[in-house]
């Protein structure tokens, strides 16, 4: 199946790398890692939680879009300069809005996101407690009330 097509395909091919070139970010650290592995790790952890603004539902750590490339470069450069990851995140949020961060920040708008798991936890505990205390009472008051056996 993988045969090299003559002339015609070659012409089409000439366009291909050029096209790919145009689409990729040329920012210095878009496709280059930091030399310090610890810093690269920190940069990577941050990049995985930042949203690519142009693509749909991808983090900047896994996108080929030019803006994702520039943002990667920006994150790496700032981490290299010694900035803390959360500072970079706040800076980006300030510029691009909450949308850019996959980690929702606690604000008046997003507090339900953090309250809801607690509510679920409470409901779960109550549900289980109620169920099991009811069971205990029923058993204390008379084993005759148990349901029929299968």
């Amino acid at each position, binding site marked *: *199946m*993988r*045969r*090299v*097509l003559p002339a015609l*395909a*070659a012409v*089409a*091919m000439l*366009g*291909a*790398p050029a*096209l*790919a*070139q145009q*689409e*990729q970010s040329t920012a210095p650290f878009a*496709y*280059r*890692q930091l030399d310090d592995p610890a810093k690269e790790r920190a940069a990577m952890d941050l990049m*995985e*939680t930042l*949203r690519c603004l142009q693509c*749909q*539902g*991808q*983090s900047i*750590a*896994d996108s*080929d879009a030019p803006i994702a490339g520039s943002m990667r470069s920006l994150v790496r450069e700032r981490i290299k300069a010694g900035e803390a990851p959360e500072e970079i995140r706040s800076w980006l949020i300030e510029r691009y*809005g*909450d*949308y*850019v*961060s*996959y*980690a*929702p920040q606690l604000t008046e*708008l*997003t507090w*339900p*996101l953090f309250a*809801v*798991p607690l509510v*679920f*936890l409470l409901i*779960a505990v109550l*549900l*289980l407690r109620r*169920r*099991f205390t009811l*069971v*205990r009472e*029923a*058993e204390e008051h008379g084993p005759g*009330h*148990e*349901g*029929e056996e*299968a």
Partner: protein
Amino acid sequence: MIAELGLAALWLAAALAGLQLLGGSLGLTAKGQALGRVVRPVAVVQGLLALFAFFCLIYVFAITDLSVKLVALNSHSLKPLVFKIAGAWGNHEGSMLLWVTVMGVAGGFVALIERRLPERTMLATLAGQAFVSLGFYAFLLLSSNPFERLSPVPAEGQGLNPLLQDLGLAFHPPTLYLGYVGLSVAFSFAIGALVTREVGPAFARAMRPWVLAAWIFLTVGITAGSYWAYYELGWGGWWFWDPVENASLMPWLAATALLHSVSVLAARDALRTWTVMLGVVAFSMSMVGTFLVRSGILTSVHAFAVDPERGSFILALLAINIGGALTLFALRAATVSEGARFAPMSREGALVINNVLLCAILGIVLFGTLYPLVAEALGAQVSVGPPYFNPMSALFAVPMLVVLAIGPMLRWRRDDFARIGKNLVIPAMLVVVMGGALVAVADVALLPFLGLVLGVGLGWASLLPLRGRNLRRLPLAVWGMVVAHFGIAVALVGMSSESAFSTEKLVAVEVGEITQVGPWGVKLDRIEPVAGPNWTALEARLLVRYGPDGKVTRLTPQSRTFWAPPQNTSESALLTRWNGQLYAVLGGEGEDGRWQLRLWWKPLVPLIWLGGLLIALGGLLALLGRVTTDVRRSVQSDRIAERREGEEKLREDRA
């Protein structure tokens, strides 16, 4: 002509669904009993007609009949045949046709073989199935007709998104749909049982194979989808908490809970209302998922239908179906008794705890997926992603895994921790040793740490129910449980290991240059152009070697250019060893003539999907076990009935 036949079959099927609903509901009344008899045959014919329509659509795609609008928009004459066929359901209209087809066929199948339940419950069940189908038929025929013609006929089709031109796509959506829609049968059974108030072990046994089958398909579908995203998107990620992924995860979570509670109902006649509730919730999650994906309300990689009219149609269907079912539940739940009681420390107790925890995770996923929409309505855009979902679901998953390790060893109804405690010594020690080793050797983040230690402990504990049993006589269903639970542990270790130990290397190399990633040496040997049926590509030939003296293997990642529609994709190349996977992607060419390579060494990563497959295999074993037991039981009862009849006849003859 074929397209018109398909459309006619679809209208006819819709009309029959109407008849099925009418017959089923009137059959429940005293006067309409005669009508009840048409319901089963109608359900079968309706399923066959839908299937026929679906084959018509496949046919027009296979021959690339460009006068059909859907084909012209989504196909291309130069595509390989398998992708032409897969293209039939790789779009909005086709996938909705697949939906009604699976629903119709499943309903027909139930009508054909299910004889254990009281006839009234069956009528209500099939009427429920018809009611839901009817909504989707209306949706299909009124707002997304897959057989619409196009005039003038275009010379060539617009092609299919290259990302979707992959064997993974050919089977991923149908698998998921079988799961989604299989849950509709559980939903209809729940409705049927609520209408006639017949909730008990017989109902659970009738419903269980459907839940199991749907759950197996969902498991396989999610596993395959995750692997597809992993190798096709070219960045080594395997789960993104993308709304579309969540849409498939939510029915799975609900189905997992349902699967366990239906088993309790079948074995112990406990958890009646809870099981019915989960039956309603599971299919509701399927519909919510479909709504999220199909309405285009979330724009993500998968959302290829962006049309608000359709969105509101599905939303209306959703409101009617779920609202109706919940109302029925609210009206009837009080009159269905809760069933047998049990102590907290018992098999049922453990199952209840995990059911509640699963539902809590479901709630979080649902809330986190929908919240950005709520926020947008309030005028702000927020993103909810992995940093939210991972810790929040772990909050409930960690206790769940602990209970999962203990639960299968407990006895039904009432048990004592002291009895099983000694069995847990080894897994507990494994957890401690693993934890100590991780702390000493590697610097691992909290979640992967928990995943690794719990995964190892659970792996051992999940095998404990086999202890002291005669393995040859062990029922298949128990094997299924053990395999599935072991699969959870395997997948957990894979996920955590990927997250904790992956090494990444992004480099620009010259031809002939050698670079290192983890234990691998990678040499860029040459770059050459290659061509496929509807694409051309630059292919890198990489020579890779594990360790200093491993065998040299060739890897060939490609950077592909499709011309219909024009788009670039990276085809990653993977090399699997027993202890992990090497993942290579070819990037672009730099100005200095160097080539970009993206390389990852991901230790134990294949365990994620191996675990997923084990989970599905466990389900399959359980399904086989249950079905053979059911068949044997029904054969026996038939025989008893025959014998009785024969005896009666003898007696009559003597008299």
